[in-house]
């Protein structure tokens, strides 16, 4: 039974849950994801693993309520259970393959956007556990949507916050902060890890290419089985078609075709798609477009 052990609200509609999932907890590493399913005819929803406890055999997921399926998940309380928790899936972050010594030679910058802060957290925590310092930029629309800032502040050397309306940190986008750090504050970074909405990752990668900083992004496209079977998550990286579920989810941000990836994310949520579905099925209850935004938006 994939029982929920702890639940808390990070914001009004972003939830943090600790779930009993022994096999996932035993083998997962930062950067990997899992798939949850609720109810007999429930959707399979991919979510990045935000934390894990090998002794308690639990994994932590963070998700935003964006549609019918995530709304159902948000109603779960301690003691309730998911029908499935499957994973870990995807390749672990490349950081986990490097020695602590090699990592300590690098200046690493994380850029987190919105609920994408959650998948950044385990990587920052992992580096912290090895004594590797890093910086982190966290961006959100406004202060009420910022999550995990205390946890990040405790683990990272420097945490910079940006909000669109200036209600917390500097007023502006994460890319504004990044540009300022490198061009005006004399910061140097060897690696940037950017996780957040696709549009944020796109512009972040465009900027870091200009600045000459190698950049890793974590993609969370539409997915179904998560094991390479359906091909729904195919994206183009450096002119080659890759499956985010098995070849990723992390890719070289400078090689990802973001425009195509963003277009594919709209598959079940454009007006056209809705109209087609409504026409075919006679109704459209939503819940279909949420998987790609539940964890990253």
């Amino acid at each position, binding site marked *: 039974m994939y029982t929920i052990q702890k639940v808390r609200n990070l914001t009004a509609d972003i939830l943090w849950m600790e779930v009993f999932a022994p096999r996932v907890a035993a*083998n997962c590493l930062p950067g990997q994801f899992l798939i949850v399913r609720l109810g007999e005819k429930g959707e399979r929803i991919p979510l990045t693993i935000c934390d894990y406890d090998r002794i308690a055999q639990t994994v932590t997921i963070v998700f935003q309520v964006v549609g019918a399926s995530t709304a159902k998940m948000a109603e779960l309380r301690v003691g309730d259970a998911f029908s499935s928790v499957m994973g870990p899936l995807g390749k672990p972050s490349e950081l986990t393959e490097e020695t602590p010594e090699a990592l300590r030679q690098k200046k690493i910058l994380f850029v987190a956007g919105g609920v994408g802060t959650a998948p950044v957290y385990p990587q920052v925590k992992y580096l912290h556990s090895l004594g590797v310092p890093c910086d982190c930029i966290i961006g959100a629309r406004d202060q009420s949507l910022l999550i995990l800032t205390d946890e990040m502040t405790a683990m990272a050397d420097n945490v910079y916050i940006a909000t669109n309306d200036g209600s917390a940190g500097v007023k502006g986008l994460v890319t504004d902060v990044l540009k300022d750090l490198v061009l005006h504050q004399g910061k140097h970074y060897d690696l940037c890890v950017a996780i957040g909405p696709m549009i944020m990752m796109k512009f972040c990668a465009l900027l870091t290419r200009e600045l000459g900083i190698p950049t890793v992004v974590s993609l969370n496209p539409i997915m179904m089985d998560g094991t390479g079977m359906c*091909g729904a998550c195919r994206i183009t990286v450096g002119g080659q078609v890759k499956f985010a579920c098995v070849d990723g989810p992390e890719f070289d941000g400078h090689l990802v075709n973001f425009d195509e990836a963003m277009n594919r994310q709209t598959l079940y949520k454009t007006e056209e798609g809705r109209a087609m579905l409504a026409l075919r*099925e006679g109704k459209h209850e939503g819940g279909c477009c949420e998987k790609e935004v539940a964890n990253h938006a």
Partner: protein
Amino acid sequence: MLSLQRVPVREQPAAQRRQNFEEVCLGYDREEAIQEASRCLGCKKPKCVEGCPVSIDIPGFIAKVKSGDVAGAAHVIAKDSALPAVCGRVCPQESQCEGLCVLSNKGDSVSIGKLERFVADSARELPLNQAAPITKNGKRVAVVGSGPAGLTCAGELARKGYEVKIFEALHEAGGVLVYGIPEFRLPKENVVAKEIEGVKRLGVEIETDTVVGRSVTIDELMRNEHFDAVFIGSGAGLPKFMGILGENANGVFSANEYLTRANLMRAGQPDADTPLHTGRRVAVVGGGNVAMDAARTALRKGAEVYIVYRRGEKELPARVEEVHHAMQEGIHFELLTNPTAILTNEKGWVSGMTCVRMGLGEPDESGRRKPVEVKGSDFTLEVDMVIMALGTTPNPLIASTTPGLNTNKWNCLIADDNGQTTKLGVWAGGDAVTGAATVILAMGAGKTAAQSIDDALSKRQ
């Protein structure tokens, strides 16, 4: 006087079944079955058995049907097959048992598949004698994948006294029987679920949501969970694409995705959360069973459907019955036609597919005549959705996380005739070894491996 024609099987009329997902073929009733069974000559050296990958005693079970002993017939089949209701429905009988039936020299072969199905379906309703209690031998075998290969291997080993646990990556057992083959060809609740229940009744345990290679490795299963042997029947799950322009447009799906949504996820059913997109005019590229399944699913979802296949009708690899049913239902066949690009509109959605007509040249290495482009025959098929059903290859995940387990250049696990892989204590069979093939060949491989595992572990005492 022996009839040269088989007893016809009742089917849902094409016009009616286009509107629903209920089974197309209705099967024989008792009277029809006995009548068809009486056509069997009961050959002393039955060719049909040679054509069966699991060597069912075909004349033996048909003789029981003829005498009206359905339970007896079920027992005969059960000795060699754990999934008769499935095989009666999805085996390519015309190229196996029925293809070798001596009657086919003069007229119709005995309708072996339909008789097997009749026995399996009828026996489910009968209070069959329970098999003798199995004496456990204290040894444990892990089976990876709950498709036809895994279920067969697990059932065989459980019968021999092994403690067997199946690990399934998805949330429901059955593999391709559940995610791939649609309801109208293979009913899930009444057929697949019942046959899986039968395997569980033998004592086999099934753990779902477990991706071997990620959730746990083969070495961990053997070292930490004390399995004496492992059988890998993980299938061929990775879809192929053509690599043509526009293939990542919205509205291009792999058949795996489309069928898994419709079958496993029940997408499109009123209370299902998973969405299913079906266009108004759909092209399905490919000519195998999966292409037919995807095409007929889209048709039932209200689309006008075109099968686009680069060779001719004779070369279609699908079961004859499926092609026949698809044509009856009004699927258009664009044969000797190959896609060259997918066109998109300004929003990135499919707006058409350019194709070229093909002619047939010299036979290639598969023995089939090689299709060659007819110059200047380009045209555009007006479609708003494309389903790629070009075949699948094995998932490299298990091999890449299991030191000592070797694969060939197509990512297929290397195994000998007994299913023994390059790693001690690990066997494999089915599509994971052969690449995409049939349910019955996977079952045959599962059965062979079970025997080999038993031979090896018995020696080990």
